[in-house]
């Protein structure tokens, strides 16, 4: 099957800034693909390469098997939901949504109907007569989504579309986006720097750093088996055990990751690995307590259910975890 989007050794340099540096990826049709990474890691530039706003300095891009280099944005059946919405301020919401159909020459009545359907789909029926300035941030964001989806693109690019929303609306929109994607079967490429969002929504995730893909895999892969220290650090605060700590456990390796929730306190069965350390800090996070322990200079964070008794600060405790929950990383 041809990939929806294919990058072969794609680079985009601005002077001596390597915004995107030798990226290889292949996004399958109908996939929900997330690009995760810290600020400045090249996610937006990757998206702009797909949309056609940037041309690669090097490498090759294909969209559904067709070469994309040199093809202007208006000839790509790819639509973008911009980070700051980019709604046309002088047009009504209905005309904004119908814009893509209008420039393609769809008749007035037909595009009005399609735009109204799209607005209903994003739960904004009857808002067509307003201007973008009369909507809230969350509503504008839905309009931007409707404006892109009304064109039935082959690939939908979303650049941190939920960035401006409050937590509740954000979670609601995450679910809506996911179910929309399922029902429409459109390939979504979703940029975010929120690891929770990427993990909960995506079929596969590419973790970016400095213009390069650090790791590409399913959310479970990325979360449980981070391949580099960067991924372990960035995707949900995983503990990275140093080689000295690993030596104490009888393992010789450069580094290994250990999830905070995989560690138990006090219990020590024969088959579990154990470490002892001093409690440095404790914080209450609602459902869990976050306990920071110092084991001879190695900081380890434990996430313990709130129902468990909380150890005193300065107390000496024993940490126990299974060898299987520890993931040895290929590179430090």
């Amino acid at each position, binding site marked *: 099957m041809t990939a929806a989007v294919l990058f072969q050794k794609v680079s985009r340099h601005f002077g001596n800034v390597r915004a995107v540096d030798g990226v290889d990826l292949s996004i399958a049709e109908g996939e929900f693909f997330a690009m995760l990474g810290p600020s400045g890691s090249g996610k937006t530039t990757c998206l702009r390469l797909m949309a056609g706003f940037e041309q690669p300095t090097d490498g090759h891009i294909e969209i559904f098997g067709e070469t994309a280099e040199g093809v202007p944005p208006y000839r790509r059946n790819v639509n973008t939901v911009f980070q700051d919405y980019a709604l046309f301020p002088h047009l009504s919401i209905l005309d904004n949504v119908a*814009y893509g159909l209008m420039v393609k020459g769809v008749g007035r009545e037909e595009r009005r109907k399609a735009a109204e359907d799209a607005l209903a789909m994003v739960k904004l029926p009857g808002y067509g007569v307003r201007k973008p300035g009369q909507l809230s941030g969350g509503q504008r964001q839905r309009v931007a989504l409707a404006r892109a989806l009304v064109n039935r693109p082959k690939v939908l690019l979303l650049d941190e579309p939920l960035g401006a929303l409050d937590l509740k609306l954000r979670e609601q929109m995450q679910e809506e986006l996911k179910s929309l994607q399922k029902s429409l079967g459109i390939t979504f490429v979703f940029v975010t720097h929120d690891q929770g969002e990427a993990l909960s929504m995506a079929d596969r995730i590419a973790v970016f750093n400095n213009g390069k893909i650090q790791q590409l895999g399913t959310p479970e892969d990325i979360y449980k088996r981070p391949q580099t220290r960067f991924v372990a650090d960035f995707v949900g605060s995983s503990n990275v055990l140093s080689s000295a700590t690993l030596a104490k456990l009888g393992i010789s390796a450069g580094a290994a990751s250990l999830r905070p929730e995989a560690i138990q306190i006090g219990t020590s069965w024969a088959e579990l690995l154990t470490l002892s350390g001093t409690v440095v800090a404790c914080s209450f996070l609602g459902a869990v307590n976050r306990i920071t322990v110092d084991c001879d200079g190695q900081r380890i964070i434990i996430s313990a259910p709130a129902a468990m008794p909380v150890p005193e600060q300065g107390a000496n405790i024993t940490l126990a975890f299974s060898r299987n929950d520890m993931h040895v990383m290929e590179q430090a």
Partner: protein
Amino acid sequence: MSAVTHQSILPERSGLARRLSDFLWRHPHVLLLILLGPPVLWLGIIYLGSLLALLLQSFFSIDDFSGLINYEFTLATYKQLLIPANFDIILRTVVMAALVTLASAIIAFPIAYYAARYAKGKWKAIFYLGVMLPLWSSYLVKIYAWKLILAKEGIVTWALTKLHLLWLLDAWLALPVVGGNSLSISYTGTFIVFIYVWMPFMILPIQASLERVPGNLIEASADLGGNPAQTFKYVLFPLALPGIVAGSIFTFSLTLGDYIIPQVIGSSRLFIGQAVYAQQGTAGNIPLAAAFSVVPIVIMGLYLWMAKRMGAFDAL
């Protein structure tokens, strides 16, 4: 003494300036009155007052025998505007102003677009200098310079001769209305110089309005399938329209009122400005001069009303 204090409210400082600023802070209306009073008086009495006086003059008439002004309300002077000789002047001026405005907008847009979207740093400075520089030199000097440029022995004729394109100029000058003996005594010459002189007033407002169009709107249009022509028509032009209208108000009204350019460069047929000048000067017919000068005001009023009706200010 240390600058850090532990008091929560600082003591009042002495000095007249201090007390005054405290007083004004507590009575912001007084400050507003002081700031706005003089300009409002100026605007109300001297500016609008003289305009009103002008308007009144146009409702008087002149006694044909004595040449004295007859201070009785009459519309006779306005009726005089409609006699063919006078009406031609009005028509000529309005058509010229409209053409100058249209051509200025067409020439100014790409320049303004480049300046707003692409020019950065040094190039932006060069742009502003290039646009403003002509405004720094005397208006008369520029016009007389243009007279030389456009004259029969001038550089335009010379350059076209060298390029073996003189026949083109000759063909143009042979045309009925726009032609003439040479560019400097034809309507074409007047037109060119008007465009040159008013160009900054068109470029700057368009540039300012384009500057406020976020770049991602243009990308959004392309993303949704709009080709460059469609993006211009549906996004760029509507958003730049307030700037174009602002610029056209300048070029249109300045052309309507100017009396020097058509006098120095052009056929000897009169424009409104020249008619006003002649009526109030040599002819001594103040009411007719006043009536003539009311014409541009009325035309501009109509123009703005139409622009508003057509939605030119909707994007403001």
